[in-house]
C-alpha cells in the first residue's frame, strides 16, 4: 500500500537530511591545508588575539565559507526545481537557461556604477542581480512560449543563446572596466566561493530561507502546473499567479546566490534529478530535500575546490561543471528520445 506524503513523514526526512548536512559541514570545515583540531576549537578564543590559531581558522575562515557554500547550494537547487516545474522541462537550470548570467550582468552593471564587494554595496548589488535575473526569466519564458513546447531542446537552445549573449556583454564590460578588479571578477564569473563576513552571511541566509519558504508554500500547485495550464485551472490553481510567484522567488534566490558567489552551474540540474530519482517527483518533498542535498553537494564541491590543488584554489564552478556537464549530456540524450512526453 503506497502512502500519501504527510507533513510528519516529510519532517522526519528533512530532519535526517539536516543532520547529515550538519555533519558534512563540520567535517568539511576540518579539512584544509592547515590541520585543525576540534579540541582546540572548542576551547574557544584565547584571551589575546593570535593565540588560538585553530579557533580563528575554524570560526573566522572555514565556517563562514562552508555556510556560504551551503546557502548557495540550497538556493541554486531550489531554483532548478522550480524552473523545471514551471517550464515543464526536466533540463531547466538557472545556469543553463542563462538566468545566472542575467544576474551576473546585473552585478557587473552595479560595479560599473561604482559598487564594490562588501556589506554597504551588497544590497545594491543584489537589487541589480535580481533585476537581471528577472528580466532573463521573462525573456526565456517568452522564447519558450514562442518556440512551442513540443521540443525539449528549443528552450535549451534559447538558454544557450541568452547565456552566450550575456557572457559576451559581461566580458565586454569587464574589459572596459577598471583593470584592478579584473582578476577577482573573472574568478567570480567562474563561480567562486570566498570568505565573507558574518553580517553578509546572516542577511543572505535570511533572504534565501525566506525565498525557499515562499516557494514551499506553492509546491502543491507546482505539482499540478507540471500537467499544464489547462489542467491547473481545472484543479483550482491560478496558473498565471502561481507562475509569477514561482518565477519571482526563483529569480530572487538565484540573484542572491549569484551576487554571493558568481556563476556556479549545474547544481540546479543535478540535485533535483537525483532527489527525484530517489524520492519521487512530489514538489512538496522535492523542494526542501533538494535544498538540503544541494547544500551538501556544494559544501563538498567547495571543499574539493580549495584542497585538491592546495595551496592554490579552484573556483567551485569548475568542480560542479566537471560533474554536471556529462550528467547533463546523459539527460539530454534520454529526454530527446522522449520528446512525445511533452505534449
Amino acid at each position, binding site marked *: 500500500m503506497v502512502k*500519501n506524503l504527510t507533513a510528519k513523514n516529510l519532517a522526519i526526512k528533512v530532519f535526517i537530511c539536516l543532520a547529515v548536512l550538519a555533519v558534512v559541514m563540520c567535517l568539511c570545515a576540518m579539512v584544509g591545508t592547515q590541520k585543525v583540531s576540534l579540541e582546540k576549537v572548542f576551547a574557544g578564543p584565547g584571551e589575546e588575539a593570535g593565540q588560538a590559531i585553530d579557533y580563528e581558522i575554524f570560526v573566522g575562515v572555514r565556517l563562514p565559507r562552508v555556510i556560504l557554500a551551503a546557502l548557495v547550494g540550497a538556493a541554486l537547487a531550489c531554483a532548478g526545481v522550480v524552473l523545471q516545474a514551471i517550464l515543464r522541462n526536466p533540463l531547466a537550470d538557472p545556469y543553463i537557461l542563462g538566468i545566472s548570467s542575467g544576474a551576473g550582468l546585473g552585478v557587473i552593471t552595479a560595479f560599473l556604477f561604482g559598487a564594490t564587494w562588501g556589506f554597504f554595496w551588497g544590497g545594491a548589488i543584489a537589487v541589480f542581480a535580481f533585476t537581471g535575473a528577472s528580466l532573463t526569466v521573462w525573456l526565456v519564458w517568452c522564447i519558450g512560449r514562442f518556440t512551442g513546447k513540443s521540443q525539449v531542446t528549443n528552450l535549451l537552445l534559447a538558454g544557450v543563446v541568452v547565456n552566450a549573449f550575456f557572457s559576451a556583454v559581461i566580458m565586454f564590460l569587464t574589459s572596459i572596466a577598471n583593470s584592478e578588479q579584473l582578476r577577482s571578477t573573472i574568478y567570480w564569473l567562474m563561480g567562486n566561493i570566498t570568505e565573507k563576513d558574518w553580517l553578509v552571511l546572516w542577511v543572505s541566509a535570511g533572504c534565501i530561507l525566506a525565498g525557499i519558504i515562499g516557494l514551499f508554500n506553492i509546491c502543491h500547485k507546482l505539482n499540478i502546473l507540471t500537467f499544464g495550464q*489547462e489542467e491547473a485551472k481545472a484543479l483550482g490553481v491560478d496558473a498565471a499567479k502561481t507562475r509569477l510567484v514561482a518565477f519571482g522567488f526563483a529569480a530572487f534566490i538565484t540573484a542572491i546566490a549569484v551576487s554571493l558567489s558568481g556563476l556556479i552551474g549545474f547544481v540546479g540540474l543535478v540535485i533535483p534529478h537525483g532527489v527525484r530519482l530517489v524520492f*519521487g517527483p512530489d514538489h512538496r518533498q522535492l523542494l526542501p530535500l533538494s535544498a538540503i542535498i544541494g547544500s551538501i553537494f556544494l559544501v563538498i564541491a567547495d571543499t574539493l575546490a580549495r584542497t585538491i590543488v592546495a595551496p592554490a584554489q579552484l573556483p567551485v564552478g569548475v568542480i560542479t561543471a566537471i560533474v554536471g556537464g556529462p550528467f547533463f549530456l546523459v539527460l539530454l540524450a534520454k529526454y530527446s528520445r522522449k520528446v512525445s512526453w*511533452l*505534449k
Partner: protein
Amino acid sequence: MSGIIEVENLSFGYTPEETILKALSFEVMPGTFVGIAGPNGAGKTTLLNLLCGLLTPKAGSIEIDTAHIESYSIRKLAQKVSVVRHEFVPVFDFTVRECVSMARTPYLGTFGFEGKDDKKFVNDALAITDTARFAHRPLAQLSGGERQRVFIARALAQNTAILLLDEPTSFLDLKHQVGIYDLLKTAQLEKGKTIVAVTHDINLTIQYADEVLLLGADSSYQHGRAKDVFSLDQIEKVFGVRTFAGKVGGENFFLPLGKFAKDSRQITSKLDGGQQE
C-alpha cells in the same frame, strides 16, 4: 427544479469576426448524462472550455449551480466542476496515487498537505475506477485505457457535482471504450454526478446519454433526448456523410458509409437525393 448548468444565448469566436457558437441556449438537469456531438470544428471542445471557465463568452451567460460562472474564483469553480481531457503522459513520473491526490488541491490549505477526509476521497475514487491495484505505478507505465481511468478517478476525487469530459474514449479499443462509459454511468447513477461528455461516438452516446446536444458546423444546434436528436436525417445533414441506420433491440445505430465502402450501393440514402440505382 432548475438546471445545474444553464446556458443562455451563448456566443463565442476566437477572433472578433469569427463565430463558432451562436445564440446557444440549453439547460442540464442535475444527475443527467449529456453527450455533446457534432463534426470537427463545430465547437464541441470550445463549448467544454467555456463550461469550465477556461474561455470567456463573447455574449450570453453560463450559470453553474444558479450562480454566474464568472462570479466563481478559480478555486471555487474547481469545487463544482471537474474536467477530464484526452489522456496524456505528464513530464515527471508521478504515480497514480499522487496524480489522483492532486484532485484535492481546491480544498487544501497553505502548504497543501492532504488530511484524513482527502485521503478517503482519493481511496474511494481509486476503488470505484478499479485503479487502486496499480496506485503505486507511474502514469507513464500504464496503457491508454488505464491512464484514462486514472484521470476519471482524479475527477471523482475532486468531488464535484459536474464532470466534463473531452472525448474520453478517443484512443481506446472497444472493450475500454465501453469500460469508460460504464464507469461514467456508474458515477451518474450511484453518486448522482452530472456528466457532460464531448464525443465522436454516436452509438455509445445513444446507449449511455440521457440527452444530446448536437452542434452543427454552421452554428446550428439540436438539444433533446438522445433518441429524438439522433435521427438518420439529422446525422446525414449535420455530419454530411451517407449513413446506414439500423435497430438492435430498442436502440438505433448508425454506421457511416464512405464512397468505397463494400456493398454501400445497396443502401439508399437521402443525401443522394434518391438518384441511387
